[in-house]
Structure formats: C-alpha cells, structure tokens
C-alpha cells in the first residue's frame, strides 16, 4: 500500500478518477466535455475547409476521369444500346437457344435502324473485340440494308453473308447484349469464352498479357533492387560529407531531373548501341573483337539500364533525407561497446534507414510498373512492358475497354502489393523526407 502511495502515476490516476465522477465545467458553466468537442469540431471544420480546394481538384481532375475510364473495363453498351430488339430477345431466351424467326426479325430491324443512325460501326467494333474479323460483317451488311429490308429476314441476311448463321457469332452477341461484361478482364488474362460460354485459355500463339504482367513486375523488382544497391552508398556519402561538398554532389544527383526524359533515353541509345560509345571503347581496348559487339540496347538489358538510371534519384532522395537525421553517436556507441563495423552497420545503422528505404523502394517500384516511354524506345521486343500494350490499345486499336481492363488489373496488383507491404513493414514507417 505504501508503494502505491509513492507511485506518482497511481496518485494522479486516483485524483483524476476521483474528479471525473463529478461534472467539470468551463468558466461560463458549460460542461467541459461538450465545450471540448465543440471547439475540436470547429478546428476540424477549418482544417477541412483548408484542404477542400485540393480535395475538389483531385476529385475533378483525377478520381472522376479515372473512375469513368475504368468503368469502361466492365461496362460497354456498344451492342446493347444500339441493338435493343435483339438484346431483348437474348434476355428472354436461354443460352444455347438457336435463333428463331423472332430473333432474325429483331436482328434485321436493329441492323437497319443502326445502319441508318450510323452506329453500326460501334456495334461491329464491340463484337469484333470478342470475335476478331466480324466488324466488317456488320459494317458491310449495314451498307446493304440501309433504308430497310424485306422478309424473309433469315434467308436475306444469310444471302448477304452466310457468317450470320455462325453459332459462335450468336453466342458472342448474346454476351454483348448486356452492357456489363467480364470479357475484357478475361482477355487481359489471356482467357476467352467458347460457344457454350465456358472460360478457356486463348490459343498459345495469341497469349501475351500474362507474360507481360509477369515481366513488368519482375523487371520493376530488379530495377528497384538495382537502384537500392547503387543509391544506398551515394545517399550515405551525401549524408555524411560536409555540407559544401554534399551540395555539389547533390546537384549531380538532381541533374538528370532537370534534363528531358527523352534526351536521357536517347543518350543511352548513343552510348549502348552496337556502333555506340561503349562498344567502340571495348573494341578499341581489345576486350571484344569487332565482330562480337555486345547487344546492350533494344532488349531487356537496355530497359533495365535506362530505367535504373532514370529512377535512381527517387531512391537516393528519401534515403538521403532519412540518413541525415540519423545521429552518428549511435554507431559510435555500438562500436565502443564492442560491435564490429559490420555488426554496427547491420544492427544499428541500417534499421534506422528502413523508413527511407521503404519509401524509396515504393516510389521506384510503382513508377517502374507504369513506365511507358523508356521501354518503348529502348526495350525492343524483350523489354516491352504491360504499359506499352495499354498505350497500344489507347492510341492504336482505340479499344479503350481493353486498355481500362489492363490498367485496372495493374492498379489492383499494385494495391495488393501495397497492402502486403503495409502488413510486412507498415506504411506508417514510410518517410519521404
């Protein structure tokens, strides 16, 4: 009991609980708890008003457009909106029902209406996504039936093009008859549906996306590791040198930031290509013969070298800012207590750099996963990443649903990794500066 009385914390606890049972009030007689809540609410409101412009900005310029774009990955009404009657027929019948007279009539009516409204291309494009080669079936039929069509519809449509009788086409149209679809996600994972609607892998020679996803994450991990290996000693040097010298070095680190990305990428081409500077020097030194010049660019090696260089500052800067705050006396203390320099580094110094390392690795990895222009220019065929396919669907084939599905998968994968990181290391440990 005497011990408890001597413990200062126990004393405070006793006093506080003693007072808490009564009602504390402010000077003007209001209950203290309520006044506190009110003043905190006011402060929160003010803080919210301060961030409101940024919130609105992010919402308008980022969340809404990206949300809209990603919606395309599972919502495409190109067929269902322009072919209402045949879509209704699909809704009423079960999968596998062969098209009857009503179906042919509905199809013909829709085709005529869609051709007149000049939306037949949208319809054909939608079906073409799932069944390549069918777009021209729709557009050419559309050109012939513009202005109206005579029954018997089935015979006439088959007369125009016998492909209209293809059961696979009807199965694909059935799937497109509702705007919601998972087919773009299936295609992003090299999967497709057969006539019965069962999911299967696409033919081997068409498989590409799974490989590219795998390669994207693998290369990003390699690049992150490389930036760490190269960046850690530099950051340490920067953090320990006297201010004047470290400032000079800092400019060298930042210099690439001030140069255009394309210029940097092109310089790597000049350096690394077979008739380039590095190969010339190696040949001149006699390390390799003139006929065995190394292929260091337009392949994976080129992508790794150029991207490591471009992303290096994103690793160095957070590491540097964390290392600056590490008190050198800790390592000295460890050494004085008998630790070898390796043990002192491993058990005392390195753990303190982890927040910077985590932030740097996260930045580099996430930037690398979505990188586009550098792999496109120096990657050749083996250094291409998934973002190059997204770009191709955005600007080449104009299949934005597919681009959105690939982007959503990439986003999802990064979020999963972020979650794993949070589990393993803890996101609140991140320190950017």
């Amino acid at each position, binding site marked *: 009991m005497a011990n408890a009385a001597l413990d200062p914390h126990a004393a405070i606890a006793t006093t506080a609980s003693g007072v808490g049972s009564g009602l504390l009030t402010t000077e003007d007689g209001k209950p203290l708890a309520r006044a506190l809540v009110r003043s905190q609410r006011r402060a929160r409101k003010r803080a919210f008003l301060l961030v409101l412009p940024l919130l609105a900005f992010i919402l308008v310029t980022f969340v809404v457009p990206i949300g809209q774009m990603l919606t395309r990955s599972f919502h495409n009404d190109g067929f269902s909106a322009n072919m209402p009657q045949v879509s209704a027929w699909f809704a009423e019948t079960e999968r596998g029902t062969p098209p009857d007279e009503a179906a042919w009539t509905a199809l013909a009516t829709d085709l005529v209406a869609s051709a007149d409204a000049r939306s037949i291309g949208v319809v054909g494009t939608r079906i073409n996504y799932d069944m390549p080669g069918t777009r021209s079936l729709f557009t050419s039929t559309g050109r012939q039936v513009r202005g109206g069509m005579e029954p018997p519809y089935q015979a006439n449509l088959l007369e125009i093009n016998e492909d209209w009788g293809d059961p696979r086409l009807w199965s694909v149209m059935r799937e497109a008859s509702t705007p919601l679809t998972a087919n773009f996600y299936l295609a992003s994972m090299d999967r497709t549906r057969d006539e019965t609607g069962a999911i299967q892998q696409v033919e081997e020679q068409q498989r590409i996306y799974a490989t590219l996803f795998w390669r994207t994450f693998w290369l990003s991990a390699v690049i992150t590791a490389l930036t760490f290996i190269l960046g850690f000693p530099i950051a340490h040097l920067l953090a320990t040198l006297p201010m004047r010298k470290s400032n000079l070095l800092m400019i060298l680190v930042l210099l690439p930031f001030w140069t255009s990305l394309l210029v940097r990428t092109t310089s790597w081409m000049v350096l690394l*290509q077979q008739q380039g500077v590095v190969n010339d020097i190696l040949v001149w030194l006699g390390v390799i013969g003139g006929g065995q010049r190394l292929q260091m660019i337009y392949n994976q090696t080129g992508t790794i070298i150029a991207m490591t260089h471009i992303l290096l500052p994103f690793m160095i800067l957070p590491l540097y800012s964390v290392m600056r705050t590490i008190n050198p006396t800790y390592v000295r203390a460890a050494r004085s207590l008998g630790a070898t320099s390796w043990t002192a580094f491993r058990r005392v110094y390195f753990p303190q750099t982890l927040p910077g390392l985590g932030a740097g690795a996260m930045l580099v990895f996430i930037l690398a996963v979505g990188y586009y222009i550098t792999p496109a220019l120096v990657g050749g065929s083996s250094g291409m990443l998934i973002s190059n396919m997204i770009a191709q669907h955005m600007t080449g084939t104009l299949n934005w649903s597919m681009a959105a599905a690939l982007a959503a998968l990439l986003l999802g994968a990064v979020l999963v990794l972020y979650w794993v990181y949070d589990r393993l290391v803890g996101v609140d440990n991140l320190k950017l500066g």
Partner: protein
Amino acid sequence: MTRLLMLGTALGLVSGPALADVNLLSWGGAYGNSHLEAYAKPFTAETGIAVTMSDADNPATPIKAQVEAGNVSIDVASVEYADAVRLCDEGALEVIDPAILLPAEDGTAAMDDFIEGAVTECFVGTDVYSMVLAFNDEQFPDAKPASPADFFDIEGFPGKRTMRNGAKFNLELALMADGVPAAEVYEVLATPEGVDRAFAKLDTIKDEVIWWEAGAQPPQLLADGEVSMAYAFNGRIFNAAQADGQPFEIIWDGQIYEMEGWVIPAGAPNMEEALEFVAWSTAPAPQARAAEFISYGPPRRSAAAMVGNIEGTDQPMGPNLPTSEANMGAALASDLEFWVDRDAELNERFNSWLAS
C-alpha cells in the same frame, strides 16, 4: 430594326473573326509543317479565315475523346485512312458532301480527279504516303538490295534490319518476300495458313531485327550504322537523305501505300469554315504545293504534274513521291477493311511471337 441590324453588324465585326477560326489538328513535325505552309497560311491569306493549328501524336485519339465527351473543339483533323473508316462507322465524324470539292483546272469533276478510294463518306484524302525499304548505300558497296526478298536475305545482304513494331505492313512485306504477288497478299493473309506463312518468313530474320516505335528512329538507326536496311515511312527516309545528306536509297519495289486526309469531328464548332477549308485545301494546286514540302504524293491525278521542285532546292520532287508512275509498278495498296477487322487479333499474335 435598323438599330438592331447595326448592332448585329457591329457585334459580328467584333466577334466574327474570333469565332470563325478553323481549329486544325495535325501531326506536327515536317508533315505538320507542310500543312501549315501549303494549306493554312495561303488559306488565311486568300479567305481571311484564320487557322489555329495544334498537334497530336495521333489526332484520332483526341477526336474520339472529344466526341464521346460531347465537347468538341476541333474543326478539321488530319487522320489516317483506317482511323477515318473506324470513326466514321462509329458516327464520330461529320459526313462530307463530295459536291463541295473543287473540280480540276481542266474542268474534270473532283470525283473523277481523285484516285480510287481517296474520298469516302467522312474523309477527303490529302496525301499518299508509303512504307518502303531503304538501305544505307555505304554498307553495300557492291551488289545493292533491290526487292523485299533481299531484305530477308541476311547472308547476301548482311547487317541488322529495322522494322515497325506491329503486325501491320510487316506481314504483307513477309508474304511479298516469300513470293506472293502484291495483288494476292491480302487474299493469302485472310487465311490462317497465310498468317502462319508470314510469321514463318519473319522468323527467318527475327534475331536480326530492331523494332522501331517512332518514325524518327529508322533514319537514325541507318545513319548510325546500327542497321543496314530499314522498313520505314518514305517521308522520313527522304528527309534524312535530302536535308541531312545521308546516303540512303529507297527501294520502291514492294512499297505499301496508304492515305491520310481531312475529317470533321461530329459537332465541330465551325462547320461552315471547316468545309470551306476542306474544299479549298484539297484543290489540285494546294495539294501539289504540299508535296513540295514533304515527299507524300497528292491523291489527285491532275495535281501530279503540278508538283514542282523540292522546297528550297532546284531538284524536282516528282520521282520521290510514292504516287510517281515509275514507283507504282510493284506497289501494294494497304487494305484497311482487313486491318480494321484484324488489327487487335494480329497484333496480339505479333506481340506473342515477339515475346516467345
């Protein structure tokens, strides 16, 4: 009433010129420059309608985005034929009445003057460009390559090659090199065996190819000696040879030509001026003038003879154009229906082939 009219006139005078600008979306570079010098500037000088030019990597992408968002700011855009077909079928483009097109100077009706396929529902062709084989003359002092087959003959004509990263053009070239006559290329390519055959032919040089992404890369690779032969757009090769004096030679045998031209996005803000611009700029004289800036041929027959010297030199441009008669012998017209249909599928297969 008079006051109202006066007010209207005054307002018209004040706001007229600002409203009547034609917003022209082009590609930039030497090609965009030809649009500026041969079309935009003289058009403004002649009609008083200002033309505001902007650039895009591929103008079809902003058109699609603007039309879908219902906020169109482009009046006229230069797009590739395939994209024009695609966007037109999707209702993203205005229909252009061919009656507005100006007749040739000898009175031939416009539709008879344009080459086949140059005017469609939504599209009026401005120029014909082509994919050609080119080589660095210095690398072949003795025998010179002369055909698609030579491009695939690594032993006879050593050195790396560079080709466009994508299925289009490469599959056709492979079939032509494998002995398929130009007229039958698409017939063969429409069959699965034909596609296999094209990829098998590409397999023979796969390890020797650097795949280019941007049109500026192949002349650079040729100039650096990184490759000895390139498969590239004729305008780029011509520019490097002409302006930078590079020793590049073009092989016209097996060229694949395509068209670019004007389209008007659905809901363009200044329709009237846009149509006037399209009609004016596709007359034979401006088309011939544009061909003096860049080696893309005019799609009007009567314009061919009017093309003068290469801008800033005293050499004739004529022989450098894909449409020149001497160059059209073994030429292949790119089949756009085919590519609009099979683009995605064949590109996936191409990328899968690259990755394997």
